[in-house]
């Protein structure tokens, strides 16, 4: 299987380890991975702020960059969902809409791809530790990927996965929301962090870099010992257990 990897703009700059792990993991599972270098951002900041015209231009660039791929796999549920949303941006029946639909049909979030397309639940990973998992809103509610991350994590040898109370609550990121409505966002992330710290986990996992950046930023500010990692890093881990 040929996979064109979508790192996302934040991933490219801030989550290099997550990207590396995802690529190695996909290769280990037998995929041939390439990285279209023209890729930038999915356009979500503009879209969610109501800048449709600007979003369309960014979307066209991404479509052109990825449309020749066999599969596109991204490491952020939210950005992958944005690509799926492209179909709503263009005029009904237009050429661009057709291209957007074709891209949507082959674009997956990492864990979704592994479970649904490759058809694997156990990636042969091992990691010694206690972790909890943050379910990102866009990935679960909008993209509809609910089970895949858990199925994969359950099969990681040595990993104890503990339940995160109120795990369906948003962490308060929301893109520009965290800046525009920073005082409300702050309350939300605080509540999330309190729930995480209330578990015995020393590791927080998630499948969306932006949520992890938000929660991780608050944990770091609080001086919390809880570590934050992208799910790809654990799935690619083969430590002694």
């Amino acid at each position, binding site marked *: 299987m040929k996979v064109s990897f979508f790192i996302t703009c934040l991933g490219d700059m801030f*989550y290099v380890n997550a990207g590396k792990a995802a690529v190695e993991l996909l290769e280990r599972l037998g995929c041939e991975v390439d990285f279209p*270098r023209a890729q930038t951002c999915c356009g979500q900041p503009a879209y969610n702020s*109501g800048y449709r015209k600007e979003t369309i231009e960014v979307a066209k660039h991404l479509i052109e960059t990825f449309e020749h791929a066999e599969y596109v796999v991204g490491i952020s549920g939210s950005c992958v969902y944005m690509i799926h949303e492209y179909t709503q941006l263009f005029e009904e029946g237009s050429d661009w809409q057709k291209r957007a639909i074709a891209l949507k049909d082959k674009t997956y979030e990492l864990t979704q791809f592994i479970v649904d397309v490759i058809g694997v639940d156990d990636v042969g990973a091992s990691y010694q530790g206690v972790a909890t998992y943050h379910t990102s809103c866009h990935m679960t509610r909008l993209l509809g990927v609910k089970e895949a991350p858990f199925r994969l994590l359950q099969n990681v040898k040595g990993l104890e996965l503990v339940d995160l109370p109120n795990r369906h609550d948003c962490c308060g990121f929301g893109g520009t929301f965290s*800046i525009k409505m920073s005082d409300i966002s702050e309350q939300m992330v605080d509540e999330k962090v309190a729930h995480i710290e209330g578990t015995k986990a020393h590791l927080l996992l998630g499948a969306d870099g932006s949520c992890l950046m938000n929660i991780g930023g*608050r944990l770091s500010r609080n001086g919390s010992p809880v570590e934050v990692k992208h799910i790809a890093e654990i799935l690619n881990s083969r430590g002694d257990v």
Partner: protein
Amino acid sequence: MPMHIGEKDFKKRVTKGIEDDFMRGAVRSAQGRLQDKRATAADELGDWEDWRTLGSEIRSHTIEHLDYYLNQLSEKVAELGGHVFFAETGEEANEYIQKIAKEKEAKKIAKSKSMVTEEISMNEALEEIGCEVIETDLGEYILQIDDHDPPSHIVAPALHKNKEQIRDVFNEKLGYLKTEKPEELALFAREKLREEFLSADLGITGCNFAVAESGSFALVTNEGNARMVSALPKTQITVMGMERIVPGWEELDVVVSLLTRAAVGQKLTSYITALTGPKQLEEADGPEEFHLVIVDNGRSKILGTEFQEALHCIRCAACINVCPVYRHVGGHAYGSIYPGPIGAVLSPLLSDYDEYKELPYASSLCGACTEVCPVKIPLHEQLIMHRRKMVEDEKRTTLSERVAMRGFEQLMNSASLYRTATKMAPFMSTPFARKQMITKGPGPLKHWTHARDFPKPENERFRDWFKNREKRGEQDAKR
């Protein structure tokens, strides 16, 4: 605008909400309870998703043919001997209701719970002409005696108060001397209210759903007071928002099932009352005179727009009960009698962007509301639509934001520009960074770093790693 409540400034309202620990405690526990109950009730019904689809189809069909069904309803009500009045604005509705109150020389008016009468400030209008209006819904009653504290929730208007606060209000205003046990509080209120019912000259009810085919009105209440309001006084007025209608009894069954489950997690609320016109010859009780007031107040201008789905709302408050923003700021922070996600969509439509420009941004777009709405209103998408309107049609966003978005588009559209910018980022951010974290950000980032650290960009970007690795031929070795 009558629907506006509280402080004018949005930021101040938010801060007040965040700092109100009592309110936040009350809201948090109510939300938790209601969320669990809703989920259980939905499970019990079984195929919840099929019910939602059905509900959404019924609402969308009804709103598409709203003029037809309103017509049918009016004819039915007239046939039964009732009077129908279409009010284009809140003022028109209030004038009509005032006129009836004067004609009947009404001193005391008993009223059941209704959001639309809040929306048009009917109570104030009636008080102006010297009437005494008694709220008979327990929540509304609490707020009324607490010097007209505004509602903070559309189903449980006093949700922001805990039981100790309610006990104190009763004690201070009515000399209540018992405990804060909910049953004791309710019993006390019920006794007080019973006296009022018996002496009211006029009854006013809201309307959950009007049934077009029979000219009936369904009222869903917790305490059965809608029945008292409509059975005892000689004259009854029912006030309805013009979209609160279903074609027939079969459809009513579906939407009421969805409403009670989504709202309070009950199969049926304690009382569902169906009223049909004035007392008929063969009937023993009911009002002698019946008036229906259908309120437009900005609804028809939503018809045919991208916001039409907002009119599908059945006011169950499920979206409010799951909303994390609502949980932290409370209902009053929205500045509207319609708070939470539906309030953020509806308030700018019924009023305007001048009044409610911040509300569409008061959401992280987490989609919890959309997921839970029993009639499938895409609430978070409607919020994005508002943002779009403000950008495109109204040019309301700041110049700096518009410039930034234009810059964003150019940056993300140019692979080479993007590459240069991301390459520079680690060096540009170094002065702000402590270890690998930025603790005091420049520009808009300062809002972020007020509460959180921001990671410093990695020196080797992912794309560099990938390229170098290709060069080194590691890829093949791995496979």
